[in-house]
Structure formats: C-alpha cells, structure tokens
C-alpha cells in the first residue's frame, strides 16, 4: 500500500538532476509539502463550508444569505453567483482585525490555546485516507490514532477558556471538557464494533472488508445503531448544535471564544469546520463504505458480474467519498438549523445513560451476531 508520503519520497529520490540528498532532508521536504497541503485543504474547507452553511441556513430560514460579494458579476440583470466571495472577504477581514489580548489574561496560555486545538485537528488529517493509498500515513492503528488525537483538542479549548480570565469563557471551557470527554466514550464504543467485525484498526483494512462484504451501515442491525450513535456523538464532539453548549451564544455569549478576535479566532473557526470534516470523513469511511461506489455495491448484490461495474476507480472514489462527506456535513447543518440546544445535564444524561449503555450492549450483541451468523 503506497501512501502520499511514499510516493512523494519516491518522487524526490527519482529527481536525478538534484544532488544526492540525505533521507532526513527529503523527509523534511516531504513533510513540508504535506503540511502545506493539509493546511490548504483545511482553509479551503472552511471557506467552502462557511459559504455552504450560510446558504443552507438561509434557504432553511426563508432568506437569501450572502448575495453581494461575488466575482461573477451580472447575468440577465440578476446577480450571478452572488455572495460566493463573501467568506473570502470575511477571512481577509478577520486577518486584518486587531488582535486583542485581555490585560488580565494568562498570556502564554491564551496564545497557546487556539494552536493546540488547531494542531489536533491538523494532525488528525495525517491518518485519514481519501482513496486507495491516498493517505499521508496509513497507520495500522489508524482508527485509534484519530480518536486519540481528536481528544487532545479539548485541552486547547480548556486552556483558552481558562486563560481568558472571563467567567463566561470558564463556563464554556468547563462544559466543553465535560462534554468532549463524555462523548468520546460512545464514539469509541461504536468504532470498536466495526473494528471487532473487520478485525483491524487500519482504515484500508476496514474499507477492504466493506468491499469484500458490504457497507457497515447495512451489515447488521447493531451497526445501524452504532452508526447513529457515532454520528450524533460526532456532532457533539464537533460542538455543533444541538450540542454547542461550550459556545452557546444565547447563554455564554461565545463560551471559550468570548475574548478572542482576529487571527486566533479564525483558528477556532478553522478547527471547528475541520472537526466537522474529520467526523464526516470518519463516518463515511467506517460506516458508509468510504470511496466505494454505491452503484457497484447494488449491482453486486444482484449478482451482476465484475465487468459491469462502472463508476469506480480513483477519481470516482474521490467523488463518492466527498459526496458522502458533503451529505453528512449537510446533515449536521440541518441539525443545527432545526434543533434547539440541550441543557448541560441533559447532554450528560444522553451521553452516559442513553448512548453508553446502548453502545456497550451493542458490542455484546454484535459479538453474538458474528459468532452465530458468520
């Protein structure tokens, strides 16, 4: 299995016109290029997702959304692609904003906080594949790695909430810590189910299993439950409504972000949208057959021979995966613009008394199911 890293390294080593380079220097170059790629992806993702979110919310709320800042001008007297440049304009505005640090804030931690959060989201992309071999590093513990690294982000939130020296921020940080730690358990438990069935923690193995058998969401009734628990816990993990308690704007002003502005605030923003993508990618890869074509899956079910499988291949795979991710992100937005927010104790109740028992029972039953039916 080749990864982006391997192919990039191979490419560098193949450049015969360059003087011989030590592997260390090549590795630094490769790492730099990949980091730049991930950062570009995250920024582009935020740009597109924010625009998408604004338009989606606008259509759900009977209004128009951004309509003015466009780059495509007029067509037939109407604004064409109006508002498409809005998020770019906002990003530029954000970077130009004054960066304030409260006088009584704990300066080093106040500065460090957003970077930890951002770093965690950033690092998670190392292990997430987008196609056969299209991954920076295909760990043999990929699933576990993502779970571990996303749990680090909460430290960034707590630190920025505490360092702001603002009571609202502190409340946001408190809620966030409680929430993310709680929802990690059902999240991990539902992943465990898939790992048990597929017998591997490696993403490529899980996808391979789904190609050989069937997508996990239709594998058994228990994986359906696991999928639901995973998706909802994922929404909670990404701090989205109805679980956006850490930043609940009607209660805590802006929670842990209250004192942030400009560039640091945009780091929070990038991380939020990145974590949405991480959760959606995880869900799509683990439960929805990743880059496997649904057309091929259906054809196989009816016994159509291999030669008839169209719409597969690397580029189609990217299309299917991104389509699934887009659908999941849309679902999250749909949640956000439909539901009211939960109360902290109801949130905890949902995690510990509903999801966790279900997830645990799920593991037990799926074990039985596999033993008896497989």
């Amino acid at each position, binding site marked *: 299995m080749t990864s982006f890293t391997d192919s990039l390294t191979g490419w560098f080593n193949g450049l015969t016109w360059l003087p011989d380079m*030590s*592997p*260390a220097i090549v*590795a630094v170059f490769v790492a730099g290029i990949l980091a730049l790629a991930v950062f570009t992806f995250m920024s582009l993702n935020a740009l597109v997702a924010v625009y998408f979110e604004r338009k989606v919310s606008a259509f759900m709320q009977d209004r128009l959304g951004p309509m003015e800042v466009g780059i495509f001008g007029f067509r037939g007297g109407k604004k064409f692609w109006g508002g498409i440049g809005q998020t770019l304009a906002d990003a530029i505005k954000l970077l130009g904003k004054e960066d304030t640090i409260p006088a009584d804030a*704990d300066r*080093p*931690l106040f500065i*460090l906080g957003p970077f930890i959060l951002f770093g965690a989201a950033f690092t998670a992309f190392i292990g997430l594949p987008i196609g056969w071999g299209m991954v920076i590093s295909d*760990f*043999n*513990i990929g699933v*576990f*790695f993502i*779970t*571990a*690294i996303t*749990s*680090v982000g*909460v*430290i960034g939130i*707590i*630190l920025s909430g*505490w360092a702001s020296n603002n009571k609202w921020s*502190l409340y946001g*940080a*408190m809620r966030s*810590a409680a929430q993310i*730690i709680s929802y*990690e358990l059902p999240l991990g438990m539902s992943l465990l189910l898939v790992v048990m069935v597929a017998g591997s*923690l490696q993403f490529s193995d899980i996808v391979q299993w789904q190609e050989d058998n069937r997508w996990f969401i239709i594998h058994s009734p228990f994986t359906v439950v696991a999928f639901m628990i995973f998706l909802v816990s994922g929404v909670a993990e990404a701090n989205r409504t109805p679980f956006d308690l850490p930043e609940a704007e009607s209660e805590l002003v802006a929670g842990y972000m209250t004192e942030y502005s400009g560039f640091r605030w945009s780091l929070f923003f990038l991380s939020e949208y990145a974590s949405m993508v991480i959760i959606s990618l995880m869900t799509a890869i683990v439960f929805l057959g990743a880059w496997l074509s649904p057309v091929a899956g259906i054809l196989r079910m009816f016994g159509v021979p291999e030669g008839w499988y169209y719409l597969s291949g690397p580029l189609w795979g990217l299309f299917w995966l991104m389509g699934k991710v887009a659908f999941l992100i849309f679902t999250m937005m749909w949640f956000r613009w439909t539901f009211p927010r939960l109360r902290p104790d109801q949130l905890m109740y949902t995690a510990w008394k509903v999801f966790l028992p279900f997830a645990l029972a799920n593991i037990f039953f799926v074990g039985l199911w596999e033993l008896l039916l497989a």
Partner: protein
Amino acid sequence: MAEFGFTGIAALVIASSFWVVTARNLVHAAVALMGTLFGVAGLYVYLYADFLAATQVIIYVGGILVLIIFGVMLTQRISSAVLLQTHMPNRPLAGVVVFFLFMGLTSLLFRTPWHEGEQVMPESTVTIIGTSLLTKYLLHFEVASVLLLVALLGAAYLSRREDG
C-alpha cells in the same frame, strides 16, 4: 533521520519536564506536562509500540491531563498559590545526593553491555497485545477491570446529589 527525530523528542521530554518542576503556576505546570506525555508517546513510537503510543495520548493527554487541568482550573486557591519553595535549608545536602545519584546512573549507562539485536519491525502490535490480554494475562485484565469498576462506583457515589 531517526537519530534526528529521537534527539528532538528526548529534548522535548527533558525540557518540558524541567518546566513542570520549575513552573510557578500550577496550570502552566500541567500544560508543560502535556509536552512530556507527548514526548513519551513519541518514544513509544520509536520502540515500534505504536498502539501503546496512541494509548498514551488518549489516556494520559486526552483523559488524565484534561482532568488535572480541569481540577486545577476550578480550584481558585490552587491556581494562585506559589508553588516554588524558596526556603530550602537542605539544599547543599540535596545537591550532594543528587550529584551521586546522577554519577551512579551515568556510570551504569556506560558500563552496561547493551545487547544490540536484529532490528525487527513487528507486523502489528495490536493483535499481539489483544491476544495476550485475553489469554495469558486474562486474570490481570479482569482484576484491573474490577478495580476500575470500583473507582467508577466511588466517583458516582461522590458526585451524587443529596436528594438522590
């Protein structure tokens, strides 16, 4: 490359643990601890114990450290307390002890005949760990889980509201 990375990680561990010990603010100490824990996870990666490394991150950084910061943060008196002892009458004595300890460890390091084996990269440690936990070390595993259960019950009892 490998030596380069190892040096970096070792430096991170030493520097951050030095910060943990000398930090005047307890929250800063806890944050510095994060560097140490991450560094140790990195060391595990060098030992091809990738599963253990991820476990180190998820349990120590994602769990225990969060709880430490959480606890320190919410106890107002602790975070403003001055931690560094300035009045230390036993300093010379401690210096002597530390010096001899350091000398002893260093000499041990150089005099040990280190066995350099073949570099074998195990296929996946996960399977080995999983199998041995459920066969050879099953009793230990179960005892640990009972201990955790007791801890869980105790925590639930403590945080229970009075009206039940």
